[in-house]
């Protein structure tokens, strides 16, 4: 009899666990696809690794995009309601194909995090502009020496530059 009750409790526990997990998972998986109220558009050129120049506008934190990222597909998928909507500091975010974007109020996307994105501080971003113009050369090194760019910031910029 005792064995019967133990077995029953175990079965109840397992069923409850399965139902809970299914419910939580189901909530995420079955969330209604949501389309943006305003169509999202391509990020500004200053966010594309190959487009960064010495004149591009830097911020203290910058996220740049490798050229291999299929931005058009991400944009299409977001506008088709295939992305997961989120929020960060009151800004609407969209996660799709392993990447999360923020949106300007006019719908223009910007990269936040994910596959094919690199986060650079101001110094590394400026260094990327130098590498894009001069390549990984002695000239670039001399300019970056003059700019007092640290080795860690050069490494970050070079990694982005090589990733393209």
């Amino acid at each position, binding site marked *: 009899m005792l064995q019967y009750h133990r077995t029953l409790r175990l079965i109840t526990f397992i069923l409850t666990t399965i139902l809970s997990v299914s419910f939580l998972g189901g909530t995420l998986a079955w969330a209604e696809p949501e389309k943006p109220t305003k169509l999202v558009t391509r*990020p*500004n*050129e*200053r*966010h594309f690794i190959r*487009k960064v120049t*010495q*004149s*591009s*506008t*830097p*911020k*203290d*934190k*910058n*996220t740049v995009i490798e050229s291999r990222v299929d931005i058009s597909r991400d944009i299409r998928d977001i506008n088709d309601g295939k992305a997961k909507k989120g929020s*960060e*500091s*009151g*800004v609407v975010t969209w996660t799709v194909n392993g990447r999360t974007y*923020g949106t*300007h*109020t*006019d719908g*223009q996307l*910007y*990269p*936040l995090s994910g596959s094919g994105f690199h986060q650079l*501080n*101001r*110094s590394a971003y*400026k260094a990327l502009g130098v590498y894009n113009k001069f390549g990984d050369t002695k000239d670039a090194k*001399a*300019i970056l*020496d*003059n*700019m*007092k*760019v*640290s080795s860690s910031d050069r490494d970050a910029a070079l990694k982005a530059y090589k990733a393209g």
Partner: protein
Amino acid sequence: MTLGFMIRGEVNEERLLKAVARALGVPLNEVARFSIDSESDATILVEIIHRTAGFLTDVSLYFDPQRIPSIATWSSIDVAPPIAHDLEDEVLVSPPADDAYANAAYTWYLITPDGKRFIADELEPDQRGEVIEINRATLRPT
């Protein structure tokens, strides 16, 4: 290390270098304009890029933090208020690293000459990414 900010109006080089020296607390002779074509041993190198619209003077400050430990932990938001006050002009700067908007690419801090700070969104970012103008309807206190 690099700090940076944008000034609403056009500022001549001499006036800007003086303002930078005062803001950072270094002698004026240790501040020089950055040129990609020449080396300089100045403590602070100032890169000035003139924009065609929006905030017209884009400034980057390059320095070795080991040479001036007093500002080694500064971020751009620390240098912007004294610059705005000195030049009597609005200055646009990145939100501080610990700010909720630090990662928002099209959101800035606007610093007024009297030291007031506002959060500001860009006005339809231009596609080339070189002209920055703010939408004043989005101004809100920090």
